[in-house]
């Protein structure tokens, strides 16, 4: 799994029938900056993921990729490879809290 | 599968039960000339591969689960053979970075 910021959402009118009714979020992965572990650095790739927890733009989330994404509720038959599985409360790195949702 | 060179091993007391009794071998993926490609991986070994021997590593989870005899095992990487020789007469075309 990776941490990510929700940058927005995607609207797609023409899509696979099994994707109807799913909210699709645009994610920017957040990696711990190896040069300064009190900060994140953004990942290079933009990820589109199915929302399974009701996350909104600006929130920090945890997302899962690959065929495991289809193990999220009601996604068994959906052609998806990324799903948001949680909304992040805190992130601690090397003894410091580097993210808090509050 | 991957071509790899054995470069060590590790021990772990607390681990998934299906790994109990298995050698956990550090395998460095290599090209045909033995040049390292990427980060070392850890695979289970049932063939007694020796340090610096070249081996073939499979990442097929289903095959690994069958070998450890546990359908709920998370294991995926497994040494499936020890290399006698690699024939590669034409210099490999390694993509530019």
């Amino acid at each position, binding site marked *: *799994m*990776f*941490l990510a910021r929700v940058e927005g959402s995607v609207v797609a009118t023409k899509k696979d029938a099994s994707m109807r009714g799913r909210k699709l979020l645009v994610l920017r992965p957040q*990696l*711990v900056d*190896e040069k300064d572990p009190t900060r994140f650095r953004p*990942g290079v790739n933009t990820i589109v993921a199915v929302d399974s*927890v009701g996350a909104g733009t600006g929130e920090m989330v*945890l997302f*899962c990729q*690959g065929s*495991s*994404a289809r*193990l*999220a*509720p009601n996604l*068994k038959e959906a052609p998806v490879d990324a*799903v948001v*599985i*949680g*909304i*992040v*409360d*805190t*992130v*601690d*790195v*090397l003894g410091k809290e*580097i993210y808090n*949702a509050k | 599968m991957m071509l790899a*060179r054995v*470069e*060590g*091993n*590790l*021990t*772990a*007391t*607390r681990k*998934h039960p299906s*790994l109990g009794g298995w050698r*956990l071998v*550090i395998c*460095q993926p290599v090209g045909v000339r*033995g040049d*390292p490609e990427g*980060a*070392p*991986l*850890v*695979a289970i070994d049932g063939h007694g591969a020796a340090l*610096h021997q070249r081996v073939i590593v499979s990442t097929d*989870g289903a095959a690994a*689960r069958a070998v450890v005899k546990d359908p*709920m*095992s*998370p*294991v*995926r*990487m497994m040494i499936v053979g020890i290399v006698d020789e690699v024939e590669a007469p034409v210099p490999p075309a390694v993509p530019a970075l």
Partner: protein
Amino acid sequence: MRVGTVIGRVTLSRAVPAVVGARWLVVSPFTRDHFPGPGQAPVGLTREPSLVVYDNLGGGVGDTIGFVEGREAAVPFAEPTPIDAINAALVDEIFYAPLT
């Protein structure tokens, strides 16, 4: 499995039912240049992207772990569990002798 150092922890305020209450470790994977030899301390952060792994072995910051990625991470669970990385081994000792 890949090997890495546990550098942190994540808590969630909301999660899909299968993973409510789970432990999540932030892990920095070892690279060939950053791989501790025998008796060496764990390395700290490497250039490899740090990822989050599901943990049910009780790993903590500073531990070296072996983690499995991909669909196999979800295999140990009776209920469908949408995870793609799991802590599979808390490493006691590494013997590493690269050729070069």
